[in-house]
């Protein structure tokens, strides 16, 4: 069945994020787009971050490397501890040593995140020259090696080509080669396969898994596809309106989701095999849309769309409480259960 996670469960975390807050200054005042996000990434594991657009997934990733457009945005609180250093307060020089070297990132759009006027070899080699001190010739040789590692045919020829000469799948492989060139400890992948066909997506996922196995890289995968989560994740973190609303191991979250939002995300999509048994049932809907940052009010941000909303949900934000075995959810329905459990 499932391969055991590459690390011991109690391994020391590589990266610890504590109470991370990000606000954007707007004409209507400060908007808190991340509100007390806590999580950790352990060596060699895959953490999937799930949620709809606007829930803070990409913002979390950007905040880790202090890449939030500033102004108007800024990190207004919290810590990002990486190897004992707080990246929120670290100097720019330190951050440059971390970005693209110890922690690297793959962006969603392979077309716009590659520079059209440099060959892919030059772009892969750039970080190697900067971080590993290689000269141009060594960097090129290493770039060829990386292209081969990510499964691009004829890498000696491709290394001198430009992004427009490559297909979408190949561009995403180039992005991965770039991100992995310096053998980072952590790879952040922000919806790396959204723009790609399923067959290419399958190739990219296989590639990520293989590279993780060989090099022990921890992966933070941002996605909205629960199928992808099931395939890739060791642990899952579900976000909604700038907060973590559920987290746990992949099996805990997928097999027994506790937050109504997580349940909705899993139920709302048609599953393969529907033609064989049902009489074309209606799909379960999550009503409504993600509220804007100004409509959050006091209580749980999901209450307007929730099937089980209680009076208490409108008054107080539910805390993220552990419901056993590292599985936690932020919902008053579960908070009651957890309290009862503790009383017993």
């Amino acid at each position, binding site marked *: 069945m499932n391969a055991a996670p590459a690390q011991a469960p109690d391994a020391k975390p590589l990266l610890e994020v504590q109470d991370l807050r990000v606000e954007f200054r707007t004409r209507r005042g400060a908007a808190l787009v991340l509100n007390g996000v806590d999580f950790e990434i352990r060596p060699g594991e895959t953490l999937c971050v799930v949620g709809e657009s606007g829930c803070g997934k990409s913002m979390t990733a950007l905040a880790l490397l202090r890449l939030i457009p500033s102004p108007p945005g800024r990190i207004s609180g919290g810590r990002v501890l990486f190897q004992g250093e707080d990246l929120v307060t670290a100097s720019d020089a330190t951050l440059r040593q971390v970005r693209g070297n110890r922690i690297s990132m793959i962006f969603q759009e392979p077309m716009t995140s590659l520079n059209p006027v440099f060959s892919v070899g030059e772009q892969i080699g750039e970080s190697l020259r900067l971080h590993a001190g290689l000269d141009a010739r060594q960097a090129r040789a290493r770039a060829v090696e990386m292209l081969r590692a990510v499964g691009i045919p004829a890498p000696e020829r491709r290394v001198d080509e430009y992004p427009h000469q490559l297909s979408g*799948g190949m561009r995403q492989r180039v992005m991965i080669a770039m991100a992995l060139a310096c053998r980072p400890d952590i790879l952040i992948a922000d919806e790396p396969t959204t723009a790609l066909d399923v067959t290419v997506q399958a190739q990219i996922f296989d590639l990520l898994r293989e590279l993780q196995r060989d090099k022990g890289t921890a992966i933070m995968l941002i996605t909205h596809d629960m*199928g*992808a989560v099931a395939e890739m994740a060791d642990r899952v973190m579900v976000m909604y309106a700038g907060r973590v609303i559920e987290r746990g191991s992949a099996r805990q979250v997928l097999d027994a989701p506790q937050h109504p939002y997580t349940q909705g*995300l899993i139920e709302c999509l048609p599953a393969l095999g529907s033609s064989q048994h049902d009489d074309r049932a209606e799909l379960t809907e999550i009503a409504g849309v993600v509220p804007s940052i100004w409509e959050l009010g006091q209580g749980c941000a999901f209450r307007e769309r929730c099937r089980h909303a209680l009076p208490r949900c409108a008054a107080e934000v539910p805390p993220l409480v552990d419901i056993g075995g590292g599985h936690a959810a932020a919902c008053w329905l579960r908070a009651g259960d957890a309290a009862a459990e503790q009383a017993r």
Partner: protein
Amino acid sequence: MTAPLLAVEDLKVHFARAGRGWGRPPEVVKAVDGVSFAVARGRTLAVVGESGSGKTTTALAVMRLAPITAGRITLGDTDLGRLEGEALRQARRRLQFIFQDPFSSLNPRQRAGDAVRAPLDLMKVGTSAERTDRVAELFAQVGLRPEQQHLFPHQFSGGQRQRINIARALATQPELVVCDEPVSALDVAIRAQILNLLARLQRELGLTYLFISHDMAVVEHICDDIVVLYLGQIVERAPRREFFARPLHPYSVALMSAVPTVHGGRARAAARIQLSGDPPSPINPPAGCRFAGRCPFSEPACATEPPPLREVAPGHAVRCRRIDVVDGTPRPILQAQAV
């Protein structure tokens, strides 16, 4: 089966491209190369395939928005391919299009109500007062509030914008609605709302859908029949239940096995049939089977003889020489691992 509403026979859409260099002949991109299918009234035909397979070009040709190189497209008794000028313009009210991207397919400076009203004005449907009533009715049908007619597109979410697109497509009471990936640009949580809406409208209005998608789970949910395209040709055509119970063409099987599922998880990923590389170029497609270069089951003959699309079971046609029919039942050469 009753006479189909839409019949496409041997459709070809070729685009000429300037040759590379002096004196070289122009290259021809064979985007759609001999595609035939039919859709019965009130049913949904899904067209699936990877990018570059020709699915959107097929849809555009049906809409008469792409040049038809050869072949015949009929809608009811009308030969769509032959219509020109005013007759074609009038026929357009019978077929409408829902685009993939709800952001770029609405004019940012046009109010939502005006966008839905535009086709009525263009086609001079009814009096001005009747058009106003019709717009209100359409808004109600797609689940928007009447006062939202006065808002601009940027004031709507992606899902609501797709509802406006649907209302606009339905304005002229079309018979055929071509949906080009109508949910793939939407958030997962919103997709179910739009899919349920499309299903309800089909039930209520008797619409016929040509549904273009690459998402096999969505297609399985919504279609009645399915056509799989690869490099401009149909490689498999079957009714929904038969196809999803037992896809026959190696490409269809690979496509199905590539879909990640919540319950399959890593076991399914490990059992996956790997396709290597990208599809070949539609400029110079391979002489034999177009899939042979990526097919794990190709034999030497596959590379030289183009396989015909042959019917192996009632309504189930496949373009692969390696599918045997034993006692009237087709035998798949490979089976996706049941997970």
